């Protein structure tokens, strides 16, 4: 049974880690297109996979956000990765099994997964 006590535990854990996040200064943003086109193309399991994987790896410096239509509906699900000081990277036609690769390679090891990017698709 999920209890409200668990929420208090999450709060305590976050408090302790908050300082690390503030100091690291390299907040990564992962933005998933969740408009009608994205949802219809399968963005929900992709977004869920990002949240699952980031929680599993305990990545405190990554924020996951949802946005509307990114503008290239035929390439949905689309995910954009923003790392401070680097060019934005746009991943297209994402599937849940591609998500751990992007998290591990790009968000952790800082190597863009070129074959998943819009440049490789077009």
């Amino acid at each position, binding site marked *: *049974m*999920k209890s409200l006590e668990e*929420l208090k535990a999450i709060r305590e854990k976050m408090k302790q880690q908050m300082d690390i996040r503030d100091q690291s200064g390299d907040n990564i943003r992962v933005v998933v297109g969740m408009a009608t086109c994205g949802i*219809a193309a399968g963005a929900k399991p992709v977004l869920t996979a990002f*949240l699952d994987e980031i*929680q599993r790896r305990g990545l405190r410096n990554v924020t996951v956000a*949802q946005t509307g239509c990114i503008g290239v509906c035929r390439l949905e699900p689309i995910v954009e990765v923003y790392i401070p000081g680097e060019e934005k990277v746009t991943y297209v036609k994402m599937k849940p099994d591609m998500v751990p690769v992007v998290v591990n390679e790009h968000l952790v090891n800082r190597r863009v997964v070129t074959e998943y990017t819009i440049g490789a698709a077009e």
Partner: protein
Amino acid sequence: MKELALYFLDIVKNSTAAGARHVNLSLSECEDGTLTAVISDDGKGMSPDLLAAVSDPFTTTRTTRKVGMGIPLYRMAAEQTGGSLSLESTLGAGTTITAVFHRGHLDCPPLGDLPGAAALMVQGSPQVDFTLVHTTVKGSYTFQTEQIRDLLGPEVPLDTPEVFLWIREFLAEQEANI
């Protein structure tokens, strides 16, 4: 879309995009096999002209292009099952969109992953207060983000992955009881 839950996820985005502070999603399943989904918000509402036009896919408020498929697809999904869709809106006060689905109809998608979809509604707009009520012939439950916001405090926004996972599992347990 393959699940009703995905339609709800999509339509709720209209509410949050309209600046709603409170969004309610109420699902009622009756013995006659109907599912009535009411999504209501206190967003900026629509003028009578816009309200009359929103079921047309060539009506949209966004500026990136000239089509908006959210409400037209939602209406089609409901009407395909022999159900209906109705919209009420007051400019400056909010919008209520009510869809009736006949669950037994061949063209009715399954409800699908409601816990996952509802948890993503919260994750996508962490500052908005959501209320989810799901009633079936077996029972009912209510989930409100206001209940958990106080416990998490200002340090932990509702879009945190840990919070998303908690909400999803909590709702899955609630679903199992009804």
